[in-house]
């Protein structure tokens, strides 16, 4: 039985386990190939998983190239956060797919979206009557393949439910964004990418809590 420890750099593995069987090496290679092995540090994205440039170079650099497609992103914030997504939303609105807003706190103001290059005709506003309905709607939208992005402001969401959303995002090749409270920073999460966002003067301070195939921990000002 092979036990995996955190290894500073993967090439070291061969040093640590010099007598590792060829078979074990092969299975590590497999894990690497499939992106199942999580590598710390600033390793480049291993998986070749498609990303969508965020429009902020320093952010892209810190989150592995851009917003992950077909995955769930969590933005922990007490308000702002949407503006981080706008350049990507503008790019996605040129696809023939919807940009769905599920239970947004207010109304996205059409002229402001248009001014940032978002094609407003792709905006789909969805509102559930209660938490259960909203979750259902978000999952449907993620899974359908008809949405390029689904932004969801859940009231409460269990880990199991978040896992379902993650799977739905993969299935629908959709960028799923959960907007949640900063109070949840310490909770574990299913999301592939977690960012804590708070205003800092005129700018936004972004704290990368978790990212695909890499360590979090970086802070940046945008």
């Amino acid at each position, binding site marked *: 039985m092979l036990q995996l420890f955190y290894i500073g750099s993967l090439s070291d593995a061969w040093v640590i386990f010099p007598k590792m069987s060829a078979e074990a090496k092969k299975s590590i290679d497999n894990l690497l190939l499939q992106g199942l092995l999580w590598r710390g540090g600033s390793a480049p994205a291993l998986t070749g998983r498609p990303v969508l440039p965020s429009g902020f170079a320093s952010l892209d650099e810190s989150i592995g190239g851009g917003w992950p497609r077909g995955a769930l992103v969590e933005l922990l914030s*007490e*308000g*702002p*956060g*949407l*503006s981080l997504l*706008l350049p990507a939303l503008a790019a996605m609105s040129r696809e*023939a797919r*919807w940009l769905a807003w599920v239970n947004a*706190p*207010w*109304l*996205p*103001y*059409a*002229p*402001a*979206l*248009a*001014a940032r290059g978002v*094609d*407003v*005709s*792709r*905006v*789909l*506003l*969805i*509102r*559930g*009557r209660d938490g259960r*309905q909203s979750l*259902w*709607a978000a999952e*449907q*939208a993620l899974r*359908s*393949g*008809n949405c390029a992005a689904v932004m969801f402001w859940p009231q409460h969401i269990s880990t199991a439910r978040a896992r379902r959303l993650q799977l739905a995002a993969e299935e629908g090749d959709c960028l799923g964004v959960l907007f949640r409270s900063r109070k949840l920073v310490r909770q574990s999460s299913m999301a592939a990418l977690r960012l804590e966002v708070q*205003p800092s003067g005129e700018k936004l301070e972004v704290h990368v809590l978790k990212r695909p195939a890499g360590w979090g921990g970086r802070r940046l000002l945008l």
Partner: protein
Amino acid sequence: MMQWLGLYFPDLPLDVFWSGETDTPLAVTRRRKGRDIIDRCNVSARQQGIRPGMPLNAALALYPGLHLHERDAKGEQQRLEAIAAWAWNYSSRISFDPLLLLLEVGGSAKLFGGIDILLERLCTDTRAPVAVEYHALAPSPGAAALLARLRPGCRVGATRELREALGDIPLAQLTRDARLLNLMQGIGLSSLGDALDLPRPELARRVGQEALRLLDRLLGRAPDPRPLWQPPARFHQSLLLLAEIGQAPALQFPARCLVEALCAFLHSRDAAVQQLHWRFLHRDAPPSQLDQGMLTPSNQAGHLLELFRQHLENLQLPEAVVEMELRVDAWQAADKIHGDLFAPARHEDQGFLERLRARLGEDSVRGLQGRPDHRPEKRWRYRDPLPAREDTPCREVFSPGETGVPLWLLPRPRRLRQRNGQPWHEGCLQLRAFSRRIETGWWDGEDVARDYYRARNPAGQELWVYRDRRSGHWYLQGVFE
């Protein structure tokens, strides 16, 4: 040559009642000589020893839990019309007999490549609302009806063969006129064959012209004009629920009968519907209604039922349902909905939006659109997300440099409290920049005169507020980020 196809549905009186489980013993009754007797019963009732013709009391003594209904002539006729709507695919000349449909197929057979193919297709048609088990073919409608009832499967191609086919059918089937029947039986006739063997003048002399006229019609020697069925202008059918249904989701099961009847109706017209009206009747409470709208017309039972199921999620029933109705007032040609070759993705798109709308309600799934107006609250409006592809991009409405506006808008401006003359929202607001002055709307009676500012509250939130220059009140209208 005329060829009539008789389709006999002996179980129709039972079929009009939808019983929750098919193995519930069920019987329908009718009155005979002042007594209620069992008219028909299903297999489960037969297993309990119940037989047609049995007095009601005897049947109840055998099986007290028997579900009983009086025969519902109106329901049967409705049901027969639903079948006729489907049969319209095979013939445009249809007329009714009790529990029977008569189709003139001599004309339409050519379209199908012969009567054999037509019959085969008709009997194996999966869209049929009920199974076609009893049928007969004859040159006259009267004979087709008789044979379908008494000699199912019988096919008589030529008039001269009719005599033989009808020969041993009891005379009582010729007429319900008891006087005439008595007269004929009085001279020793017991079957149709007996009557046909007598020389015509002899028969006429002994029992009257009426008997001759009936026989001539039966044999196709005299015209037998029958009112032809006209397809109804709209679809309206109801279904009595034998077992009351208290839970809305359970309504999907009986709904299938109605939806299938509707689809038969639609297919016969090559039509599709966009709006279904459901009504659920209760014992005491006023009926519940459900309008099932679809984004595009459909005539697929599976699709209609799937959406109905979603709608049921939102249906609140005040009481159990005892009867349900489906009504459709308008439809359109189905061919119009197939032709969209260039947007194959759209159907999926529609399915997705439809599913959401069915469950959440129409007002909960909307698109956005800009409007040329200076008042922020009128600068946008909701739009139906569906015709998205045909729309001209609404970006045109926006001037490119509309900056300094917030990303978020409150659905309605919210009046702010004031403290010491300062607007207040989760703390005293600090006005940071004058944004714009808006004076407009005098033409539609909603004129405004406002000064907009960018403000910040102690929590660091950037807000878009305005002061109404007439009243001096402050309002919050948007949130920056």
